[in-house]
C-alpha cells in the first residue's frame, strides 16, 4: 500500500501540473498578504479564493490522474496485491501530494503572516476540504469507465457543491421563511463540505457579530466543543464515506 503511494507521489511531484497549482496558491496567498496590511481581511480574501480553487483542483486533478494511470492500475491488479490496498495506496499517494501543494502554497504563508486561531482553522479546513474532494474524485472515477464522463461528473459535483447547493439552500429558506429554520440550517450546512469549511472559518473571523440571531446560534453551536467535534466529524464523514463506496465498487469492478 505505502509502496504504491510512494510511486504515485514520486510520479506526481515530477509533473508540472502540481507545480503550477502550488505556485498558483503561493502567488494568491503572498499577493493578498503583501498587498493588504490588515491580516484578518487577508484571511477573508484567501478563504474566498480557497473555497473555490481547492475543491476544483483537487477533484479534477485526482480524477484525471486516476484515469491516466489506468494501465498502471491494471498492472497492479495482476500482481498479488489486494484491491483494497491498491485503491488506498492510490488515495494516499494522490492526496498527500495535493496536500503538499496546499501546505506549501497556503499553510506556509499563513503561518508566516497570520498565525492565529483563524489561520489554524483555515489550514485545517483547507486540508480536510482537499481530502474530501479527492475522496469524491475516487468515487466518480470508480463509478464510470469513461474518462470524459468521469471528469464531467467530477466537474458537476464541484459545481453542485460550490454553487447549486447554496442556491437550493437560498430557495429553501425563501420557501420556508415562515418556519424556524436555524436548526435545519445547521443540518443543511453539514451536507456540504464547502459550507462547513466556510462557516467554521467565518465564525473564527469574529464576523458572527454581523450575523445577528442566526450567527449567534451558529456561534453557540459551532463555537462549542460539541460543535467543533461535530463539524470535524462531518468533514471526516465527507472523506470516509465516498472513499468507502469507491472501495466497494472498485473491489467488484470489472476492469
Amino acid at each position: 500500500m505505502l509502496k504504491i503511494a510512494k510511486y504515485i507521489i514520486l510520479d506526481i511531484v515530477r509533473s508540472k501540473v502540481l507545480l503550477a497549482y502550488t505556485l498558483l496558491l503561493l502567488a494568491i496567498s503572498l499577493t493578498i498578504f503583501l498587498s493588504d496590511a490588515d491580516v484578518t481581511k487577508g484571511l477573508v480574501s484567501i478563504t474566498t479564493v480557497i473555497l473555490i480553487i481547492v475543491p476544483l483542483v483537487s477533484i479534477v486533478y485526482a480524477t484525471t490522474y486516476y484515469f491516466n494511470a489506468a494501465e498502471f492500475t491494471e498492472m497492479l491488479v495482476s500482481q498479488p496485491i489486494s484491491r483494497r490496498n491498491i485503491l488506498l495506496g492510490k488515495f494516499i499517494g494522490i492526496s498527500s501530494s495535493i496536500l503538499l501543494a496546499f501546505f506549501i502554497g497556503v499553510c506556509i504563508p499563513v503561518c508566516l503572516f497570520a498565525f492565529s486561531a483563524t489561520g489554524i482553522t483555515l489550514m485545517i479546513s483547507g486540508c480536510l476540504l482537499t481530502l474530501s474532494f479527492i475522496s469524491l474524485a475516487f468515487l466518480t472515477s470508480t463509478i464510470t469507465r469513461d474518462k470524459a464522463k468521469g471528469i464531467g461528473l467530477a466537474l458537476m459535483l464541484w459545481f453542485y457543491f460550490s454553487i447549486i447547493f447554496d442556491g437550493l439552500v437560498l430557495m429553501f429558506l425563501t420557501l420556508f421563511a415562515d418556519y424556524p429554520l436555524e436548526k435545519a440550517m445547521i443540518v443543511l450546512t453539514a451536507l456540504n463540505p464547502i459550507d462547513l469549511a466556510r462557516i467554521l472559518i467565518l465564525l473564527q473571523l469574529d464576523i458572527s457579530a454581523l450575523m445577528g440571531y442566526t450567527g449567534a446560534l451558529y456561534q453557540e453551536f459551532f463555537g462549542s466543543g460539541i460543535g467543533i467535534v461535530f463539524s470535524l466529524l462531518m468533514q471526516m464523514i465527507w472523506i470516509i464515506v465516498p472513499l468507502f463506496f469507491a472501495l466497494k465498487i472498485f473491489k467488484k469492478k470489472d476492469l
Partner: protein
Amino acid sequence: MRSLIVKIGLLFMLPVPVWAHTIIVAPGTKVATLKQAVTLAKNGDTIRVEKGTYISLNTIVDKELTILGQNQPVLDARFQEEVLTITSGHVKLDGFIIKNSKTGSMRDFAGIRLSNVEFVTISNNILVNNFFGIYLSNCKHIQVLHNHITGSNNIENSGNGIHLWKCKEILLNGNYVTRHRDGIYFEFAKKCLIENNFSEKNIRYGLHFMFSDDDTYRHNTFKNNGSGVSVMYTRRIAMLDNTFIENWGSSIYGVLLKEITDARIEGNHFIRNTTGIYMENSDRITVTHNDFISNGWAMRVLASCNKDHFTQNNYKGNSFDVTTNGTLKEIYFNDNYWDKYEGYDLNKDGTGDIPYRPISLYAQIIEQNPQSVMLMRSFIVNLIDKVERAIPSITPESVKDEKPRMKPWKK
C-alpha cells in the same frame, strides 16, 4: 461662538479679592483635613492641599474657593460616602486624586458632585473607583477639563463617568473616561460643548444622551465600548470630527440615532464597528464628509427616517454599505465615494456616469430572511453581487447615488 461666550464668562468667574488668604492643608498639622480648611476659609480664599492621603467623607464646599492639590493628594471616601460635594459657585478644584465613593442603588454616590452651581472649574483630577465620577445636577457654566476617570468595571454596581442632569452651557474638554457604565451621560443638558474627550471600554455606552438639544461634540474618540454610542430624543446637535472605533459585537453600534432631528454629522471616522450609524425615526440629518471604513454595516437606515442627506462620504471596505428594513423615502445620497462602485467616467469630471445603488440585493435578501446570512462570502453570494452590477435593474430598492465619486474624498 457658544464656547466663546462661556470662556468670556469664565474670565469674570474668579474675582480674586486683595484680602484673600491661602490656607495650607497638610497631614499632621493644625489643618489636617480639607473639611477643616473649608470651615476656616472665607469666600475668595485659596486652599492648598499638600501631598498625602486624606479621608474625605462627603466634604461639602459651600464657599467660593480655589482648591489646589499639590503633587496630587488623595481624597478617599473608603466606600462610605461621596467624596466631595460642591454647593457654591465660583469654585476651582484642581489636581486631586479622588477615589472610592460609596456605591448604592438608592442614591447616586459620586466622586465629585456639583449641585445647583455656576462658574465652577474641575480640572486635572484623577478619579478612581467611584460609583459616579463627576456628577453635575442643575448647573450652568461649568468647565470639566483634563480629568482622568476610571470606574470599577463592575457590571451591577457602576455609575456613569461624567453625568450631567439638567445642565446648561457646560464645557467638557480633554477628559478620559473608562470602565464606567456610560462614559459620558447627558440628560436635559443644553448648549454644551464636548471636545477632545476619549471614552473607551465602558460597560454600556461611550457617550449617551437624551433630551439634550443644541450640543456640539468635536474631536472626541469613542473606542471599544460595550454598546458604542447612543443618542436619543434630541434636536439640533452637531457631531464633528469624532472617531468611533472598534465598537464590535452583536447589537453594538458606532452611533445609534433614535428620534434625532436636525443633526449635523460631519467629518467623523467610523472604523471597524459592527454598525457605523444606525438610524431610527431620525429626520433632517445631514451626514457629510465622514469616513466609513471596514465596518460590518456602514449604515443601517430604517424606513422611519425622513429627509436625510448623505453627501461626500467615503465608504471603504464595509461588508454592507447601507441596509434598511423597508422602503426608504426622501433619503438622499449624493457625491459619495463607494469602493464597490464599478461604473465608468467617460467625461472625466470625477463622478461616475451611472448611479450607484448602495443597498445590495443580498442585503435585501438577508433583511427578509435573516438565516440566509449564513451564505455570506459563499460563491453564490459573490455571483449575486456580480450579476447585480451587470444588471442593476434587479436591485429592488430605489435608493441610489446619482453622482458617485470615482476617487475617495481627501481631508
